[in-house]
């Protein structure tokens, strides 16, 4: 093998008297505890005995199925339009590109509820675009499963675009030039050379977007409402259950926690490896 052996993990001996100062250690531990204690509380108070029963109830299954379906559909939609958008941002020059990138990343920092309101104004029955969808095609998106998918896509796609754009910028554009000299059109070069090269980045972006979509609450409830079986995803079900059946809310939360941990584990090579 040409790659060198993994760096030894043994700690280097520390010079004497160079310990961690308490002024840094104490707040650091406090911060760590703040992040961990709520999760531990979730595990401690979980109704472990009735958990199998909770998790197999039709309501939970319904919400879980809907969540998985919508998050996956939103991820697929993000891939179909987000990867080309990332390519455009990374590989072409046009006026106002910086502005376009800023607008793409806006949903990252925008309160999701605002996103939901904006979606209503755009795609609602009387919305800027929605009125024509309704008049011409009889399509109404708010308060439907498709509406959930759109709300999740709106919030999740920027994660994918940013991740893929970064990977594209790091990828050597000269591979595309080499493909061109061999007779590949720009699209063929993208499909047969660039896309395979950036596949890990696309996958990481997709997982990130999927996780974000799965946890989406604000935009969904604003744009799609809260109808069991149609638009009530897991986070919405958790919120609702907390009012009248806390045990069910905890059980649902545990499922989402498990999914998050699985996502983190899947991405650890990419996001948790420090230089």
């Amino acid at each position, binding site marked *: 093998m*040409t790659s060198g052996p993994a760096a030894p993990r043994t700690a280097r001996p520390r010079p004497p008297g160079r310990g961690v100062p308490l002024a840094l250690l104490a707040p650091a531990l406090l911060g760590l505890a703040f992040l961990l204690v709520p999760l531990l509380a979730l595990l401690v108070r979980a109704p472990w005995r009735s958990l199998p029963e909770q998790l197999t109830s039709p309501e939970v299954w319904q919400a879980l199925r809907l969540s998985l379906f919508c998050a996956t559909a939103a991820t697929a939609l993000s891939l179909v339009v987000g990867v080309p958008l990332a390519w455009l941002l990374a590989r072409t020059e046009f006026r106002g590109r910086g502005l376009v990138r800023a607008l793409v990343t806006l949903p990252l920092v925008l309160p999701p509820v605002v996103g939901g309101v904006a979606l209503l104004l755009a795609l609602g029955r009387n919305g800027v675009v929605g009125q024509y969808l309704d008049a011409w095609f009889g399509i109404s998106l708010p308060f439907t499963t498709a509406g959930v998918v759109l709300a999740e896509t709106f919030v999740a796609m920027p994660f994918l675009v940013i991740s893929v754009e970064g990977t594209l910028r790091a990828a*050597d554009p*000269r*591979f595309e*030039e*080499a*493909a*061109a*000299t*061999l*007779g*590949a*059109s720009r699209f*063929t070069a993208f499909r*047969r*050379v660039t896309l*395979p*090269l950036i596949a890990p980045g696309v996958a990481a972006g997709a997982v990130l977007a999927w996780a974000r979509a799965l946890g989406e609450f604000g935009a969904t409830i604003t744009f799609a409402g809260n109808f069991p079986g149609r638009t009530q995803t897991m986070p919405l079900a958790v919120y609702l259950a907390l009012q009248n059946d806390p045990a069910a809310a905890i059980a649902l939360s545990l499922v989402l926690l498990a999914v998050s941990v699985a996502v983190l584990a899947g991405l650890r090579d990419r996001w948790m490896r420090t230089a």
Partner: protein
Amino acid sequence: MTESTVPHDAGQPGRTAAPGLDARLVVDRGAFRLDIALTAAPGDVVALLGPNGAGKTTALRALAGLTPLTAGHLRLDGAELHRTPPEARPVGVVFQDYLLFPHLTALDNVAFGPRCRGAGKAEARARAAEWLDRMGLAGHAGARPRHLSGGQAQRVALARALAIDPRLLLLDEPLAALDARTRLEVRARLRRHLAAFEAVAVLVTHDPLDAMVLADRLVVVEHGRIVQEGAPTDIARHPRTEYIAQLVGLNLYRGHADGHTVRLDAGPAVSTTEDLSGPAFVAFPPGAVTLYRDRPTGSSARNLWRCRVAGLETHGDQIRAELTGELSLAADLTTVAAAELDLHPGAPVWAAVKAAQTHAYPA
């Protein structure tokens, strides 16, 4: 523009154009301007030689269509390629670091071109296998680029470029990525392949040895312009710029000849055996210079200059002394001689060159 009325730029419609390459490449890039004319017949191997930043790679990219021409023309076997996108040009490129697609096997890398140019999958792979076989790489068809040695990767890159049957083959610093040992072997092999290639090959290099071994004709480019072109031996013997003189290891001066004497622009006169008049170059190898601590008395050398040592460095098993003074020059001497002369930076010396060791030619 109407072709019938305007006799433009040597274009002669209706007549079968000469095969090979006929190009004038003009690329403007802010402060830098490339402007060179290149012609070559099928079977020619032309080397663009020049220092870094001279515009060699820009010229290659312009030929491949990766950098647009600001002006000029580009004809290959009579076809105007000026506005043809790179994917439609019959031009194969071997990039400096090869740019083999890391996710494809050697075979699929070579099959990529034929596949993009319309061959079926099976046909493209059969053709690729044939090329790998010709390169002596049949056993590595299934290997990914990262498992290939530098020399093997270079051959895969060459096979990939040749597999599209190019009418023009471009090689960008084909040996620069290799270590000294592999270089020797790959250079010999590349020379055979280039000799067998029936269309035009243009290679870019900053290494004079690569250029002289691989090419039939050298085109020396400096600051975006051609400063000299010709057969390798001719250029090695008659350098016309400081850069080329350094490459081929000669001291070079420009001056004005009158009989057997050339008065240098740099000051002193040099006695030569050639009989010339008018602007002229004088060249002599560093090995032809003899150094003395004190002014030699019985020396037969007519060319004698008082100099100072500006720097010393080992050059193979010799010492190369850079001298300044009446004339700036490089002199080679043995380590023993250097010690006997007590050479050190700042030391005064006399430098002598016999007229028979100099070579003068018209500028």
